[in-house]
């Protein structure tokens, strides 16, 4: 049965996703030198999309399933199935300020405005959310924002820039997501893949 999988194009996340799929038994040749965005191997099609776009491709059904970091799943707000935790790099959403933060937080900068608004609302913080493209730390250092919400892996960048991780909001990992129609119409194929991925995820080193 034809199966289309969206995988993230970011170097590290792509490598992890391909690794998972190969371990789950899919035959995917070496793609190190490939520049194709769409790769077809018999009945399998891989779409290489920007990490935050994986949930979109799956939700509209262009891809049957995909592999993506949970930060992008949360930010997308898309209504996909999320049956497997693939593990991978453990990282977290965190609330971060300068070591001597301003008395009142009025502006929070982030790459994840949707998720950040949700967190702020849950914690009753009435601050504006400033959506930035990256290097979020700089916004707190320069006064563009009073605090930031960002993903943290080791915390080294924060330390080197004199920032403090005030609260770990959510632990994150890489997930396997599935389109709602595809799970039902390609049930046999996808059930197998879900089982294989679940089985291997227990063995993937962090």
């Amino acid at each position, binding site marked *: 049965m*034809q199966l289309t999988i969206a995988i993230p194009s970011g170097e590290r996340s792509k490598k992890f996703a391909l690794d998972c799929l190969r371990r789950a038994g899919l035959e995917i040749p070496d793609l190190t030198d490939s520049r194709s965005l769409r790769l077809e191997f018999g009945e399998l099609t891989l779409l290489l999309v920007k990490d935050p776009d994986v949930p*979109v491709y*799956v*939700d*509209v*059904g*262009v891809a*049957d399933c995909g592999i993506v970091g949970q930060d992008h799943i949360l930010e997308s707000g898309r*209504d*996909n*199935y*999320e*049956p*497997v*935790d693939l593990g991978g790099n453990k990282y977290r959403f965190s609330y971060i300020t300068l070591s001597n933060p301003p008395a009142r937080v009025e502006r929070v900068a982030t790459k994840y405005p949707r998720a950040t608004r949700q967190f702020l609302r849950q914690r009753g913080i009435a601050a504006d959310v400033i959506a930035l493209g990256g290097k979020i730390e700089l916004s707190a250092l320069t006064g563009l924002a009073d605090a930031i919400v960002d993903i943290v892996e080791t915390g080294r960048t924060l330390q080197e820039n004199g920032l403090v991780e005030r609260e770990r909001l959510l632990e994150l990992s890489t997930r396997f997501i*599935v*389109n*709602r*129609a*595809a*799970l*039902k*119409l390609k*049930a046999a194929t996808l059930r197998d893949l879900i089982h294989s991925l*679940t089985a291997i995820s227990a063995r993937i080193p962090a």
Partner: protein
Amino acid sequence: MPNVRLIPDGTRYSTPQEETWRERLRHQLESVLHLWGYDPVQTPALEVFNPHHPLAEKGFKLVDRDGTVLMLRGEYTTSVAQLVQTLPTPTYPVRLRYSGPLWVRTRDAELGRQREYTQVGAELLGVQTPQSDAEILSLALGCLDVVGLPKAAVEIGHPGFVKAVLEQTQLEPDKIQALRGAVHRKNAPELNRLLEQYGIAGQTRAAVLRLIDLYGSVDVLREAKEIALNAEAKDCLENIRAVAELLPPERFLFDLGIARGLDYYTGVIFQAYTPDFGQPLCGGGRYNAGLPAVGFALGLERLTTALGEAPSLETVYAICTAPQSAQRLRAAGKRVIGAWTDKQAELEQAALAWGVPYLVLGDVALRLEDGVRCSVEELCS
């Protein structure tokens, strides 16, 4: 820059080719609903804003001249249920159908999703029996067949079952809500984590975990018996089984982990899918809007997206220079256009470009393909 005015996100101009197709699809669907005994109704596109409306947050709002807030119609079910209550002494059950545009402000415009879109649907009101549920389910399938989607399958669920199984945990509402979210996304790792955190173990825990895997053929109804531990769960299962018994099994799928619309739907719920199209073509279910009812709606734009390209336009049959000839052909059901100039060469050129087979000069018809002449009478037959 061509002088085209911008139109809002998620709205479309419909070309003659597309609109002809849409018109035909609508007509096909309405004919099926008509044959099943459903009578047409229409509701105002402008509704008085009601904060308790299911789409209250998502609708387009306008302000009326006296300051009343209005909302553009975002779905039909609510207003059709109200319309029924204005009918003079209806004899239940009442069968109604509707067709028209809807607007949703908050939706992102993307593949198969518009902010202005069209639904064709039906409601069977004032009755609550497995037979009425099965009628609406069969009708939905009949609609998909008539538009040419014979591989479409209808998936049936029962949010009441999910609710009942989750209530077996006897947890507080916010925790049940969290479990429900994980069930809705078939998020096994999250569900495991929550059950662990809430200290749910044994049979109850196993039952909740099974919920997300109970999808597939009618067999899942039998499997589901094992996790129906309380009376509510057993009732829901019995209800969906009674409906399933009235349906041909090969076109129906089941998912007992469907947890959407828990607060709205009161019985079976369903969506239809077709291979290689990742979005539901139609949706519906049993609800209560002051009276028990079951209904469904098809998204016209979903159908056209799933079906692919619009078929080419039907060409006209002839160009006529004499109005009398044109009238006679039209009376015979032929689609003909009148000449807009005296220049025969220009008419012939247009006819060739459009693929119009005949040019009728006075009462003589000229077949352009080979120059053969015949009378208008002959063309009429």
